[in-house]
């Protein structure tokens, strides 16, 4: 399985607004495409993305089929304390893709 990619600054100042970039390999099958036989290809997308900072949810996204395949998302959060950021993507089949990143806040 292809691991998710995240870019989080390894260090930040207290209170600094940091940008986090995420990229995941996923077909994000819309459910509107048809195969060569004319049959609808069933929908299979990531419907929820969450980012937790030392256990507290700091960002969440609800996705629909209009989010492009291999979804890219960049967002911001305030660097409050040193610790771990956890990123989770959940798709329609219930599969959870997850990765973590450490941050040191001075």
């Amino acid at each position, binding site marked *: 399985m*292809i691991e998710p*990619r995240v870019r989080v600054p390894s260090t930040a100042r207290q209170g600094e607004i940091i940008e986090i970039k995420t990229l*995941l*390999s996923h*077909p994000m099958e819309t459910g509107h495409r048809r195969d060569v036989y004319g049959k609808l290809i069933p929908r299979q997308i990531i419907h929820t993305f969450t980012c937790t900072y030392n256990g507290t949810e700091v960002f969440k996204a609800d996705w629909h089929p209009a989010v*492009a395949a*291999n979804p890219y998302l960049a967002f911001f959060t305030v660097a409050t304390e040193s610790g771990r950021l956890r990123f989770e993507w959940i798709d329609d089949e219930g599969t959870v893709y997850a990765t973590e990143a450490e941050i040191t806040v001075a």
Partner: protein
Amino acid sequence: MPLKPRLPWRRATLVPALSLLLPPWQGQGRLIKGGPAPTPSRGTGLTALRRRRRAKVGMGGSRAGQGTLRSLWRLSACVCVALLALAIAGAGESWRYSVEERRSGYTYLSEENQRLQDDDFANPGLLWVERGHELWQQIDGTAGTSCAGCHGDAATSMRGVRTRYPHFDPQKGQLINLEQQINRCRAERMHAPSYPYESDALLALTTFVAFQSRGLPIDVRIDGPAQPFFAAGKALYEQRRGQLDLACTHCHDRYAGQRLRGDVISQGQINGFPIYRHTWQTLGSTHRMFAWCNTSVRSEPYPLGSDEYVNLELFVAWRGRGLPVETPAVRR
């Protein structure tokens, strides 16, 4: 009575007229290369006259004047070169995506997609490069080794590899491309099963290996034992096929740069493969592209990994010689 044209005008038109008699540049169809510069001779024209006068008089009248003037010319030449170098550097990466008349698919992209390809985080192809890196280090097969076990650090050992494929393989007696080479290493050295063509694993490894040659110019060999396969690839490229009865050369040579419905036709170069293609919403190989093109003209495609496509790959790679490896490129 019609005015007789002055000699310099006549000489200026002589060179282009001569060039029309030269044979067309091989592989580019109708493109005509300019002829050699005319050798300077003791002419009677105005230019020649000025030249002799300059040599006699020295453009300043005295030897000292000559020296000052010469250094002034040298200085201005240096300044011009420096400015040109700055302009090229300032123009960014885009200039090296064109070599003579050969243009990378990058030059046909919108700004957004060019930026996406250049983005060292968000380029979706990099997901496969990372996966390829994992597979490179993974022990697989009964020999108990990994790619890294023989080849070590790919950044060193694989640098330049992508620029030389496909090439003639004496063991096979025919061409071998990068995907086939990877599978051969797996089968013969690692005693591991081959990856199916176009599988995520093979794409990831191919992209990872090709990525190590990023920026280096494509430089395939078409002489010696590779020659008959190159010729076969060229024949395939020029052969009409399918219900639409088109050959590759029709779109990619004759109509490159023009529109095909809502899209712009590129030259069909493969220096960026495997590419992240938006139409496929995933990474794809050269052979997948060839098969897509064949299907587009309603022609039965050859199987992925077939000899026909490997031969075609060599010809198309040679068509793009000098263009930089851009793997993983982003295309529409």
